[in-house]
């Protein structure tokens, strides 16, 4: 049956930006390209654009399907489409793959014109600020002076915040979902274990595995398995897998026995086919470095003095990686600056991944909020 609420078949587009991008690290990208998708129509006043920023393993393919690939639905297809909470009948929605990614925008797998080889380990470390600067260049290309809203979950929420801080005139609303104003030590620790898994894989070759026609599969697989555990909650894992076994009896060995083992290994294996290990390293570093309060002696309220947008902050009760407490810190900083802000703590047992899941209340809140945005 055809999904009448789907944006249907979509095609990625590319923009080449021939101006150097000064990165926070001090390095410069002389030129780069970005891959993006759009859904819906930009109105005559160019006032109905929404940018959706992706999280760690996301990309520009947010909604719809590719003509040549069945079931290739975008990662937020349940949220974005005609009649969906982010309604493409009203809004012109843009998804963009971030720099350093591995789905078409310039990243470690791209060819460095200086050497003729893939960047690999030489691709500079990029930050949330750098991504936002690159996204802003895309907005210039699309001739969008101001976004009706910038939306992101997790690492995407950090980009939405950064936009409101760096380009306050260009953001009317920022929807920051399941995010935090910086990572906790525990969060950084998880990221570093993931990185160590990749960096110590013998097939990693210092990041230049492309030259050896191999991949650090084991490392990336472990990194993803670890990450995946932290995106779920104890309750959701108990409900979905419990202690169920693949076979009826114990095998007293180390092969897959429990369903959860099978699931995680499958997720890990699948990920190694879809994602580049160098990109994974870069994305986790961007997460670790994000900390807008840093330049203000840790005072987040001072950091948000620059912001002008209205904010919607959403968190999920079972999200222990970006807990509701962390969202409330953002809310506090916004309140201290007399900014328009609404905050909801959504009941869900699906952990950090809740922000990607279908949840009537969650979707209704987003729909209601966006409904009030005049375009």
């Amino acid at each position, binding site marked *: 049956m055809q999904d009448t609420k789907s944006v249907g078949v979509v095609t990625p587009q590319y923009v080449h930006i021939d101006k150097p991008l000064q990165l926070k690290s001090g390095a410069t990208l002389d030129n780069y390209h970005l891959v993006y998708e759009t859904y819906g129509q930009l109105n005559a006043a160019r006032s109905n654009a929404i940018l959706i920023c992706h999280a760690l393993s996301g990309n520009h393919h947010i909604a719809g399907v590719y003509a040549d690939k069945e079931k290739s639905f975008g990662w937020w297809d349940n949220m974005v489409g005609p009649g969906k909470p982010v309604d493409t009948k009203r809004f012109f929605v843009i998804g963009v793959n971030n720099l350093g990614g591995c789905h078409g925008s310039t990243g470690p797998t791209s060819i460095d014109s200086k050497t003729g080889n893939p960047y690999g380990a030489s691709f500079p470390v990029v930050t949330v600020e750098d991504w936002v600067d690159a996204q802003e260049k895309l907005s210039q290309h699309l001739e969008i002076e101001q976004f009706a809203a910038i939306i992101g979950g997790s690492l995407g929420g950090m980009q939405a915040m950064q936009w409101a801080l760096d380009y306050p005139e260009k953001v009317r609303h920022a929807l920051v979902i399941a995010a935090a104003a910086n990572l906790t030590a525990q969060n950084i620790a998880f990221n570093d274990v993931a990185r160590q898994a990749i960096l110590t894989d013998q097939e990693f070759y210092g990041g230049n595995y492309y030259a050896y026609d191999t991949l650090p599969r084991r490392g990336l697989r472990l990194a993803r398995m670890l990450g995946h555990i932290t995106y779920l909650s104890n309750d959701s894992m108990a409900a979905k897998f419990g202690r169920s076994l693949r076979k009826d009896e114990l095998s007293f060995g180390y092969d897959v026995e429990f369903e959860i083992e099978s699931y995680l290994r499958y997720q890990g294996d699948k990920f190694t086919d879809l994602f580049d290990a160098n990109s994974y390293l870069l994305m986790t570093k961007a997460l670790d470095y994000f900390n807008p309060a840093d330049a203000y002696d840790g005072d987040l309220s001072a950091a948000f003095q620059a912001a002008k947008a209205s904010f919607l902050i959403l968190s999920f009760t079972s999200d222990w990686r970006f807990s509701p407490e962390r969202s409330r810190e953002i809310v506090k900083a916004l309140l*201290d600056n*007399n900014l328009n802000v*609404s*905050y909801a*703590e959504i009941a869900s047992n699906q952990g950090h991944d809740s922000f990607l899941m279908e949840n009537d209340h969650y979707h209704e*809140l987003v729909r*209601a*909020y966006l409904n*009030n945005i*005049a375009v």
Partner: protein
Amino acid sequence: MNDANPLSVVALRPDLAAIAEWIQPGKKVLDLGCGDGSLLRYLRESRNVFGYGVEIDDKNLLSCFYNGINVIQNDLESGLSSFESDSFDYVILSQTLQAMRHTEDIIQEMLRVGKQGIVSFPNFGYWRNRVQVALGQMPISKALPYHWYDTPNIHLCTLNDFEELCRRCNAHIIECRVMSNYRPVHIFPNLMGMLAFYRFERAK
């Protein structure tokens, strides 16, 4: 920037309208237990008031979103730690005090966060309530529409009781009004008033 759809100002519930009369235009308001957000919306649209609501219930929260007001989902029992001292002109607690566990704490928090506090509550001393108690039963009325066993109201009080709490909390009462059947009452307020409204501030 206010993006909310311009809608005609809906008639406010009379008890909320009574509170709205106390709010000066252009001021900053915190509405605790703001329900569907209609008071804040009314104040924004008719008096250019900027504010936030605090609400715990999911359904009410969604209504607030549709009303286009700022609302923070939070449990009032845990205090107002998200809000700085002296950061509001008015802090409103409308028909919520009687359902709160930490009655004294919330009054103290209102005095800390706001220059003035506004509280409304059903008056247990209303004559119809007294008659029902005299006849040997817990009162059920328009203002108290619950049985004793299913009521959320755990801290009912009379006007005199509330004034005593204000003294205890070092709150100076600026003004008191009462209503019965949504009409103002001017005689024997603790007997004739079904709903009580108080405006107060920190005692100097």
